């Protein structure tokens, strides 16, 4: 058997709305029936739970006439006292005590779980996570749409106009948090449209300013060029340059100081380049003059000689090796023979031990000593031969060293000559580049420089000095004249405006693109939110059908739904009931009685709570959900509550004595481990409600039939 769904174990209320004195209501049961006639404090109890969870009572906040109108603190509480609601919860097998204290303006939540104590935002967050499991879900939406049902809120959904009803339904479906998205998207599109227009206007205005500034600059420059002292100075400088800077050919001197400055800078760069080329030319000439001469035949002869010597050395080394080997062998043989003779001589007897002939020991000894001496002479000859071979190899090595040294010096000379040639080639290339540069040079000067003419380079350095000096004087003249300064200021202004126009053009383009995107987004937002609502209804619909069928408020209109759509760019929702047999449809508010319409509203609330499983709230609090219902509806509702309590801790209240009695009987426990609490609000005075509490007794259940 599944454990009872049990989250709220008790709620203590003090100085809150109808409660002044502290009272604790025990709720440790899967079903609690709260009863009592109107005005006894039942709704204050439901309000207390909602305020504890959310810190607000939006239903009452909208009714308060002034912001200072206190509606949370009990009117009979001591001055300065704060409202306080505390609940003991069981969350994931942990016992948690949450308490909220405050007034209608502000309140603070406290969370205590074992050693852990959280306050304020951390406590709110812990409570939301503890109750909803999924931190993405909004506790407020969950409480208002599927946790705590208050009848007037539900009925308002059905009675509103289609647009407001759509908004209410969105809230009802847990979509309130996205309903505001439409507004923000529309507002964003409008703001972005205004921003784009403003950017375009700003760009246009700045562009006009630029055009005007450019025209003014042209006018000032024209005036400056036409000033007598400027024209005279320009003519004088032109003549001066023609005489003193023959390497340059300047058709017309600049009439703006910035251009004169640029001309001076160009002339200096030309001068520096020409000077460098002249310096390089002198260095190269010196290197070319001092370059060593190399005889190619001699170089080839040396290379051949070196190769021949290498071969001869190899041969001589072979001969040396051979002689050394022979000498070593001969030395070994002579040593062996001498050792043998030295041992044999003392052993010589009178007769041969083999043939028994008489031996002349003196003669044999002499003979042996001759043999030993003869070996010594051979060794001397072989040692001489080996020494001669060594001498030959050494002589050849010396020859090869000399030849190699000669060859290396020749090769260094060859490399040095090649390097100088490469430098000269690069120098010519640089001359050609200078000759074809953008500097205003005379054609014959260009040609001479490109050809590496040293005189032309010298002439160019002198001319460039002159041009630079003249350009400096001209720039100074143009800048220091009154009109020149004005031209410079205007030019700066034009530059600033050009930069601004470019930036504004880019900004305007960006804003326009963004405006187009936000416009598309705004258009899609309404349809998207309606689409989400439709999808949610589709998920809900089978459960709605099931619940509506059980409550059966009408004999013919047996199905209930909402038609969601978009009208004039706004979402609309129209409730509709249908007779499946005839296909006839109608608005439940028009075809239903008040109590039947209540059943329709309750159906959606219960369907949302049920469908949100397992991510929804683990409890369901229904404050007087059905009023003026007939017996059949009441029986259907009571039977439905039996099923709901299997998954949700259920707290249901009614002011009708008959319904209370029915619910107490229907929800009474039928097996061990299932509990039902009965809370009766029997009276009220300034101290608060008078409450009787008890746990319903388990009555034994009998059977007519044997279990199969």
């Amino acid at each position: 058997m599944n454990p009872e769904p049990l989250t709220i174990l008790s709620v203590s209320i003090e100085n809150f709305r109808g409660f002044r004195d502290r009272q604790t209501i025990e709720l440790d049961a899967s079903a609690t029936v709260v009863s009592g006639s109107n005005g006894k404090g039942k709704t204050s109890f439901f309000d207390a739970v909602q305020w504890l969870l959310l810190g607000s009572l939006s239903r009452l906040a909208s009714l308060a006439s002034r912001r200072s109108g206190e509606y949370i603190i009990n009117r009979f509480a001591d001055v300065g006292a704060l409202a306080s609601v505390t609940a003991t919860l069981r969350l994931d097998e942990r016992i948690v005590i949450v308490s909220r204290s405050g007034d209608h303006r502000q309140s603070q939540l406290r969370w205590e779980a074992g050693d852990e104590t959280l306050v304020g935002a951390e406590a709110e967050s812990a409570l939301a996570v503890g109750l909803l499991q999924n931190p993405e879900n909004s506790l407020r939406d969950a409480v208002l749409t599927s946790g705590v049902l208050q009848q007037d809120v539900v009925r308002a959904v059905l009675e509103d106009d289609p647009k407001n009803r759509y908004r209410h339904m969105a809230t009802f479906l847990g979509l309130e948090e996205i309903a505001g998205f439409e507004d923000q998207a529309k507002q964003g599109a409008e703001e972005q449209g205004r921003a784009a227009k403003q950017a375009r206007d700003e760009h246009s205005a700045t562009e006009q300013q630029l055009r005007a500034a450019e025209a003014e600059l042209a006018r000032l420059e024209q005036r400056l060029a036409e000033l007598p002292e400027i024209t005279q100075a320009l003519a004088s400088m032109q003549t001066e340059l023609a005489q003193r800077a023959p390497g340059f050919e300047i058709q017309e001197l600049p009439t703006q100081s910035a251009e004169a400055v640029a001309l001076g800078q160009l002339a200096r760069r030309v001068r520096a380049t020409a000077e460098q080329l002249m310096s390089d030319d002198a260095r190269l000439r010196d290197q070319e003059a001092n370059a060593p001469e190399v005889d190619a035949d001699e170089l080839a002869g040396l290379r051949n000689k070196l190769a021949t010597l290498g071969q001869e050395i190899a041969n001589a080394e072979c001969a040396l090796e051979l002689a050394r080997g022979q000498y070593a062998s001969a030395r070994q043989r002579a040593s062996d023979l001498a050792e043998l003779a030295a041992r044999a001589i003392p052993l010589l007897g009178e007769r041969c031990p083999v043939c028994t002939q008489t031996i002349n020991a003196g003669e044999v000894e002499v003979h042996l000593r001759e043999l030993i001496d003869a070996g010594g002479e051979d060794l001397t000859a072989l040692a001489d031969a080996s020494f001669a071979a060594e001498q030959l190899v050494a002589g050849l090595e010396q020859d090869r060293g000399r030849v190699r040294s000669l060859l290396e010096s020749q090769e260094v000379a060859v490399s040095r000559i090649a390097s100088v040639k490469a430098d000269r080639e690069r120098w010519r290339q640089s001359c050609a580049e200078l000759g074809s540069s953008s500097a205003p040079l005379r054609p014959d000067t260009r040609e001479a420089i490109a050809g590496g003419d040293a005189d032309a380079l010298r002439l160019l350095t002198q001319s460039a000095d002159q041009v630079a000096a003249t350009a400096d004087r001209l720039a100074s003249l143009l800048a220091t004249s009154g009109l020149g300064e004005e031209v410079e200021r205007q030019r700066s202004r034009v530059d600033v405006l050009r930069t601004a126009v470019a930036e504004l053009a880019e900004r305007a383009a960006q804003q326009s693109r963004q405006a187009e995107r936000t416009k598309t987004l705004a258009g899609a937002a309404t349809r998207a939110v309606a689409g989400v609502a439709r999808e949610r209804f589709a998920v809900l619909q089978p459960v709605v059908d099931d619940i509506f069928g059980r409550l059966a408020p009408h004999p013919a209109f047996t199905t209930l739904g909402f038609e969601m759509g978009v009208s004039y760019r706004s979402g609309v929702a129209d409730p509709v009931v249908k007779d499946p047999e005839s296909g006839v449809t109608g608005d439940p508010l028009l075809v239903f009685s008040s109590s039947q319409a209540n059943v329709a509203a309750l159906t959606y609330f219960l369907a949302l709570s049920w469908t949100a499983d397992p991510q929804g709230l683990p409890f369901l609090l229904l404050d007087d959900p059905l009023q003026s219902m007939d017996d059949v509806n009441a029986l259907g509702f009571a039977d439905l509550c039996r099923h709901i309590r299997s998954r949700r801790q259920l707290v249901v209240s009614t002011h009708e004595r008959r319904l209370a009695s029915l619910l107490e009987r229907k929800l009474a426990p039928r097996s061990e481990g299932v509990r039902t609490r009965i809370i009766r609000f029997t009276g009220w005075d300034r101290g608060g409600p008078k409450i009787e509490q008890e746990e319903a007794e388990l009555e034994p259940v009998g059977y007519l039939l044997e279990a199969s």
Partner: protein
Amino acid sequence: MTEAKLDTRLLLLARRILERHHFRVQERQVEGLEDATWLLAESDYFVLGVAAGVEFDDLLLLEGYVVESLGRLLQDHLGPKRWDSYVVLLSTSGAEERGRPDVVRLQHNTRSIRRLVALGTAAHEDAVASALATFLPLQEPPMQGLRPPFDELIEQLVLNGVDHEQASAAVASYRVQRDTDES
């Protein structure tokens, strides 16, 4: 008794559904009517008498017999369950007669036993289960429950022509703004 036309298919389906939901079920003879049966079914919470006829008039006849028979069976040892007794009357025809005064009167007659009349109940399991819904668990909620609305919103924005990146960014921006406003 006057002859009533019975619908055995509906009764068979009702039995199958109730047994699947752990009801104890027994077929009983309608007294005075040969080969006519009704179902006695009970669970921890309910005691039911289920009968099925072809037309509403047949149900009217059956109702009297089943209410009387069931009433006789209800005993003190059943405990509180004796107050949760129902007679369920099923017929495939008569859907158009649901609002007829005598049908409504029968539905609202809760004297000793509540009557549930399901006219126009098709002879298949879903329809019969719907007629018996009061005694069966609520439909299972969708396995995944409801998806976070912002995920659904992004999906719908994309379906309505907004590129995914922009949709995600717009929704994220909205959420930040909303959280800031709330705090």
